[in-house]
């Protein structure tokens, strides 16, 4: 598609469509919503500057993710980590959606905390595959690691998520079934 769409229009469109995903990825990388705000803004400006590099309008989402990650690694990470010493992993209250069912909220908060407490490499992989739906090979290309690395990161992450999941998922299923 997009025979007539200029690369700049395509990039603007992609920014509109994927801003939530890029922000979420920024959150997974940095662990802080204010840094995610900055990462999203920088990513979009950088993408717009580089729109002429776009040769295919397919998969602009992974292109945005790649830009976001490289800004994080090259420009923001050292500063943020130095500032905070460690990632803030307390779920920010406003990030967890407020539903009528408080038990569901507690479960969501626990899963959120567990994911955010994973080491950075596992966290970014979980975000790309579990949340954003990238395949293992797409995530491998995006993070520039072998597929086997993606799979072992996910296995390690599953081991850590297992406790909270098994405990609470059973509850959640039982509740939603009634």
């Amino acid at each position: 598609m997009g025979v007539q769409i200029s690369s700049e229009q395509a990039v603007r469109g992609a920014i509109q469509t994927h801003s939530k995903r890029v922000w979420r990825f920024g959150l997974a990388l940095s662990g802080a919503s204010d840094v995610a705000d900055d990462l999203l803004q920088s990513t979009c400006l950088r993408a717009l500057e580089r729109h002429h590099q776009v040769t295919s309008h397919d998969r602009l989402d992974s292109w945005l993710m790649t830009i976001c990650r490289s800004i994080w690694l090259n420009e923001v990470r050292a500063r943020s980590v130095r500032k905070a010493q460690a990632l803030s992993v307390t779920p920010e209250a406003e990030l967890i959606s407020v539903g009528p069912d408080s038990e569901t909220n507690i479960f969501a908060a626990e899963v959120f905390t567990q994911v955010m407490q994973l080491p950075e490499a596992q966290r970014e992989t979980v975000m790309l595959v579990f949340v954003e739906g990238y395949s293992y090979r797409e995530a491998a290309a995006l993070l520039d690691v072998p597929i086997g690395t993606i799979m072992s990161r996910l296995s390690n992450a599953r081991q850590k998520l297992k406790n909270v999941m098994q405990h609470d998922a059973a509850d959640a299923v039982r509740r939603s079934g009634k």
Partner: protein
Amino acid sequence: MKFSDETLRAYLEGNADAAEAVAIEAAIETDPELEQRLMALDSFAPVVKAVFDDIPAEVPQVNLPEAAVSQPQTSGGPWRLLAVAASVAVLAVSATIWATRPQPMGWAEQAAIYQSLYTPDTIASLDNSSAALDAQFALAEAQLGRPLNRATLEVLPGLELKRAQVLSFKGKPLIQVVFADDQGQPLAFCVIRQGEGAPTKDVKLAALSGLATATWAQDGYGYMLIGSNEQTDLNQELDILTATFAG
């Protein structure tokens, strides 16, 4: 090597033995179908996805510069005049191009052009296993923000469901669902999210890019059925789809 669902589940839960885990990880590298199966069986993914789906709750705001022709930086001197002359020339050319530009095409015209490039070979070897379609429909429905009524699409008379693909038109998610008729010819059903307030449109039949098409719009979504040639009779499918996708 074949792996049973049981073996794959054991791997996902961390209960496979080491040799099996190594074998699965090695096989995935060259077997996208196995990868799709494994991903579809992963019970952790949907839970984590559900938790993060609403984060952030609002679409984050991004401040972008207006789309504009950037002026070259000049520091005066003779180059400046040259730069001005050059930018006047660029403007003149741009104005001519703008004045003679073709009318922008709508999504339906573009979708028809895209679909007209399909041949039976394009779709003959697509993996339409249940696991592949599960993954494709999950992605497509998430992008689109509405169900695609796969159960109906799977039993359209005379058509075999081949693939659901996420495309985009001017930043709006556009889903193309491809079918093969009994001769293996490609047909497509497309859905685009146009946003609330988009006008409702009755079914309109037209030949676009040499293909019979039917388009309609309702409740913020646009729909399009595309035949395999200009003569394709779309009526039967159209009856079912207009009834199924009535908002």
